[in-house]
C-alpha cells in the first residue's frame, strides 16, 4: 500500500475514534448527570431522581443525628428552604451560613443526601464580600 494511502487510512481511523469517543462522552454526560438546582427550584422535584442542590445552610437548622446531620438549605439570596438528611462523614468546614453543594434524592417530604457528596465551599477565598475588601 502506498504511503499516502496508509496515512489517509490512519487519519480516518483516528478521526473516527475521536468522533466515537466524543459521541460517547456527550451521550453519557447527558444521561449520567443530575440537574443542578437551588432549593426554590426543587419544588418540581421527582421522587427518586437525584439532583445536585446548591445553597446556604439555614442558621439554627443543623441537627446532629446518630448517623450524620439534618439541616435545611436555602437559596443564596432567598428564604425558601428545603430539609436535607445526610448520613456519613461531615466535611470539616460545614457550618450554618456556609454555602454547600450536595447530591440529594427526594424521599417523601425530605431530601436524602448521597454519601460523600456533601461539599462545603471554603469560606476564605470565594466570598461575595470581595468588594468590601477593596479600598
Amino acid at each position, binding site marked *: 500500500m502506498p504511503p499516502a494511502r496508509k496515512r489517509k487510512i490512519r487519519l480516518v481511523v483516528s478521526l473516527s475514534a475521536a468522533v466515537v469517543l466524543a459521541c460517547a462522552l456527550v451521550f453519557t454526560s447527558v444521561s449520567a*448527570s443530575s*440537574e*443542578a438546582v437551588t432549593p426554590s427550584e426543587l419544588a418540581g422535584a421527582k421522587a427518586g431522581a437525584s439532583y445536585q442542590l446548591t445553597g446556604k445552610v439555614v442558621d439554627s437548622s443543623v441537627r446532629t443525628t446518630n448517623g450524620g446531620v439534618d439541616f435545611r438549605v436555602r437559596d443564596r439570596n432567598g428564604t425558601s428552604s428545603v430539609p436535607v438528611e445526610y448520613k456519613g*462523614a461531615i466535611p*470539616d468546614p460545614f457550618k450554618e451560613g456556609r454555602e454547600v*453543594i450536595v447530591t440529594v434524592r427526594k424521599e417523601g417530604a425530605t431530601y436524602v443526601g448521597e454519601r*460523600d457528596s456533601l461539599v462545603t465551599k471554603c469560606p*476564605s*477565598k470565594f466570598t461575595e464580600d470581595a*468588594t468590601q475588601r477593596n479600598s
Partner: protein
Amino acid sequence: MATVGRALLILALAVALYGIAASIYGAVRGRDEWVASGRRSIYAIAALVTGSFAILEVAFLRSDFQFATVASHSSTTTPTFYKAAAAWSSQEGSLLLWLWLLSLWASLVLFATRRQLRRVAPYATAVLLGFAAFFAALLVFLETPFALLAAVPAEGAGLNPLLRHPSMMIHPPMLYSGYTLFTIPFAFAVGALIARQVGAADWIRATRRFALGAWLFLGIGILLGARWSYAELGWGGYWAWDPVENASLLPWLTGTAFIHSIMIQEKRGMLKIWNVSLVLATGTLAILGTFLVRSGILDSIHAFGASTLGVPFVILIAVLIAASIGLVVWRRAELRSENRLDSLLSREAIFLLNNLVLVAMAFVVFWGTFWPLIAEALTGTRRALGPPWFDTYTVPLAIVLVLLSGVGPVIAWRKATVSNARRNFMLPVLAALALGAVLAAFGAASRPLALAMFVCGAFVVASVGQEFWRGVGVRRAMTGEKPLRALRSLVARNRRRYGGYLVHVGMALLFVGVAASTAFNDARDVRLAPGQSVRAGDYEFTYERATSRISTRDGGLQKISFGAVVDVRRDGRHVTTLRPERGYYPSRDLSGLGPVGRFFEGEATSEVGLKAGLRRDIWTAMTPDIRRLLPTIEEGDRVFSAAAGKLSPQLEGQALGVALDGIVKKYLADRPEATFRVITSPLVTWIWIGAIVVFLGGLIALWPGPDAARRRVAARYAARVAEDLGRA
C-alpha cells in the same frame, strides 16, 4: 508601607505597559535598543514585585493588623511559618505571588536568551509583559493586598485551621510555579508564530527546560493537594474530580503530551502544528486553572455571581483562545512537517499515540468539569456530573497510557522490525502476565480494571528494568566499569532518556497504588459506643475510650479537641493504636454567640488517625457526639452572660477556663458514642512513593549535562573521521 507597596504595583503596571510598546516597536523596526529596554522592563518588574511582596510578608510576620489582608487571614497566635504562608492564602496575596513568580521566571528566560532569538524574543517579551500587566492591573484596581483598615483590630481572624498543614502551604507556590512556568513556552510559541520562526526549533530548545520544570512543579502541587486531602480531611480520599482539582490537572495532561511530542519535532521535524497547538493550549489552560478556582464560575453554579474577577478572566481566556487559533491558522504554511511517520511500529508512533490518549483524557476532564455550563448554555438547565462518570473514561485511558509508557522505552525509533520487537518485549510481557496470573489466583480478578492496571504497571517496571540492565551491560562492555559505577555514568550521560524512564516507573507505581486503593479498599461508617468494634478488611477497630483536651498557645486557648483511642487488631494481634480527634476552634465572631458556646462555634478540623504501611494504610476519622454537652454549654452561656461586667477580665478568664475544663471532663465521664469512618486500603503509600520517583526522574531529566561541550567537540571529530572513511 502599604502606600509604598501599592505604588510599587502601580509602577509595575506602568512599566509593563511601556515594555509591551517598547518590545513591539523594537521588533517591528528592528531596533535592538528598544528590545533591550523591553527586556529590562521585565527585570524592573521582578524587582518591583519582589519589593511589594516583601512588604506584604513583613506585614504578616509582624502581625500588622492595619493591613486588612493580615487581619482577616492571620493572628498573633499563628505559628511563624504559617504567618509567612498566610500571605498567599488570601485572594489578593495569591495573585501577588503569581505575579512575583511570573516576573522571576520571565526574567530568567529572557536573560538566558538575551543574545539569541532575535526575531522571536521581543514578541515573547511582549506576551509575558502582557500577562504581568493583566495581573498587576487586577492587583491595582480590583483586589489590592494593601487595603488598610480604619480601625486596627487587636487580633486577627487567624488562618483557617484546615490550612495549617505544611503541604497546604507549599501547595500554592508549587502550583503557581507550574502555571507561571507554562506561560514561558506559550509566550515563545506566540513569538515564533508571529516572527515566522516556528519552522526552526529554536524556541523549543530555549524553553524546553521551562516546560519540564513547569510540568514537575505542577505535578508536585497536584500531589500535595491529594496528600492533604487524604491526611487532613475527614473523608479519606485523595481525589474527587472536583472542578478545583480538575482545573490543575488539565494543563498538566496537555503539558505531558507536549514534553513528549517536542522530542519528535526535535528528531524528525514532525508535528509542528501539533506542538504549537499543544503549548498554546497548555498556557491557556494554565491561566484557566489559575482563575477557575477564584472566579466563582463553577463553584457557584451561577455564572460570575460570586466574584469580581469573573469577567476580566473570561475576557482574557477568550483573547488567548482567539489569538492562539488565529496565529496557528495565519502561519500554517510554516508549520508543515519535514518528515512523515515511517511505521506504526516505532517510537514516534507510540509517542503520537501517547499524545492522543493524553489529549483524550484532557478532553474528558474538560468536558466533565464544564458540563454544568455547557448544559446550561445549550438547554437552559444546569446539570452536574459526579466522580463515577469521570472514572468511566479516565480509568481505561490511564491503563492504555501506562501500557504505552512501558512500550515506548523499549521500541526503536523510526521503524522497529517485528522480529526484534518480539525479542525485546518477550521478557517484560511474560513477567507482567505471570504477575497477573498470580494476582488473579489471589482474587484480583474480581476487579478486572484494577488487575489490568497491575499487569500494565508490572510491564512498565519490567521493561524499564530491562532497559537499565541492558544499558549497564553495554556500558560495562565498553568501559569495564563496575556495575554501580556503570549505572551512574549511564544515567549521567543520558539524563533525558533515563530520567524519563524513571518517571515512567514512578507513574506506574502511582497508578498501581491508585488502582489498588480504589478497587480493594474497605470503608465503613459506623456509630460506636466505647468498647464496641467494627471490622474493615482484615482489621478490627475497637473504640476503647474517649479523649478530650484543651490546646493552648502562648497562654491563649487554641482549640478544644474531642477524640478517641482506637485499638486496631488483626487476627487478635495488636497492630496499632490510632487517636483520631475533632478540634473545635473558637469563633472570632462574638455577636450572637454565648460566651461559652462560642468556643464550639468556630471552625472544626479533623485530626485523622493514620497508620501507613507499604502494604496497606489503616485510616480513621471520627465525629464526636457533643449533643449531651449542649445543656451544660447553654447553662454556661446563661451564667456568664448574667455575670458579664461583674467580674474583672482576669477573673472572668480564669472562670471561663474552669468552666471549659469542666465541660471537657464531662465529655469523658459521659462515655459518649461517636461516629467513625474506618478505612483499610492497600498500597496507598505507593502513590506517594511513585510521586517521589517521578520527581527524582524529572530532576535527572532536567539537569544540564556537564561535559556536553567536551563531548560535542570529540564527537565532531569522530564523525568527520568516520565520514571521511565512509566517502573514501
